[in-house]
């Protein structure tokens, strides 16, 4: 296998769901967004996978990194701010699936 980078499969505006996984080790996907749906704001590029790099491995294939926008009230049902407040987070593609396709 010599695939250097995974091909991006989401586009700006796509609805995506963060995988509800709880893998051990070094992970850059915060707990509070797992299982929640958001919207792709931009593709940041492809980067070595930090979950591999953290252990001295190659980080290949590189993973597409997105900025995903969530509505605060979707993340925190008792959110005290305004209804249109949002949060944006960088999430790697292997943590995302198309919204609506959750098992």
């Amino acid at each position, binding site marked *: 296998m010599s695939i250097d980078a995974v091909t991006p499969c989401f586009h700006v505006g796509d609805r995506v769901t963060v995988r509800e996984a709880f893998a051990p080790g070094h992970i*850059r*996907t*915060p707990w*509070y967004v797992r299982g929640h749906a958001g919207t792709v704001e931009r593709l*940041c*590029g492809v*980067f070595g996978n*930090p979950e591999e790099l953290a252990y001295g491995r190659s980080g290949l294939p590189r993973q597409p*990194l997105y*900025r995903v926008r969530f509505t*605060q009230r979707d993340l*925190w049902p008792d*959110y*005290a*701010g*305004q209804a*249109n*407040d*949002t*949060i*944006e*987070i*960088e*999430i*790697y593609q292997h943590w995302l699936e198309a919204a609506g396709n959750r098992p």
Partner: protein
Amino acid sequence: MSSYRRYGLFDLRGAGRGDAGPNEYYQVMEIALRELLIERNIFSADDVRRQVEAMDGRNAGIGARMVAKAWLDVDYKTRALANGSAAAQEIGIEVGPTKLIVLENTESVHNLVVCTLCSCYPRMLLGLPPDWYKSKSYRSRAVREPRAVLSEFGTEIDHHVEVRVHDSTADMRYLVMPLRPEGTESYDEVELATLVTRDSMIGVALAADPSSSRQGG
């Protein structure tokens, strides 16, 4: 091995610990690793010293210069919003391998930056992060109740303005471009930069009020 007390980077950086007390666990680990890397000629002690000196030499004035230029030059602002790293390099700011995203505050959006996982921070533009930025309290509350956190910083964001939090979790770094204060139409770039505070570029504050800032000289 010599018997003199070895210095952790925090001592070298003069970050307030001074010579008080024995080295803590992570300082001992840092010293051991650094000495090994020097022994193996991966880098030299002078390389470390120069890097620390460079880190300490950076401050929020660098980011302020970028924001002030963007306030004055619409084309530059457009480039900065499209590609923050390239726009920083364009005015001679060394950004390194991380990618910079510039977030523009507008009449309808106020941006706030946090790193919930650790303390990612645009050091190349703002210098070392303040202690509160690294605190668990800020890191957990900024995403959960940003308006309450802003209020504690003395920053009230109007109800019709969207508060947009940016959790800096991976390979991007974020710089907030605050709204240009009113009454600054005649200001040049240097004068404008004095209004662009560190906290306004993290998003916990607005740009300084020109009337009070000028008094402070």
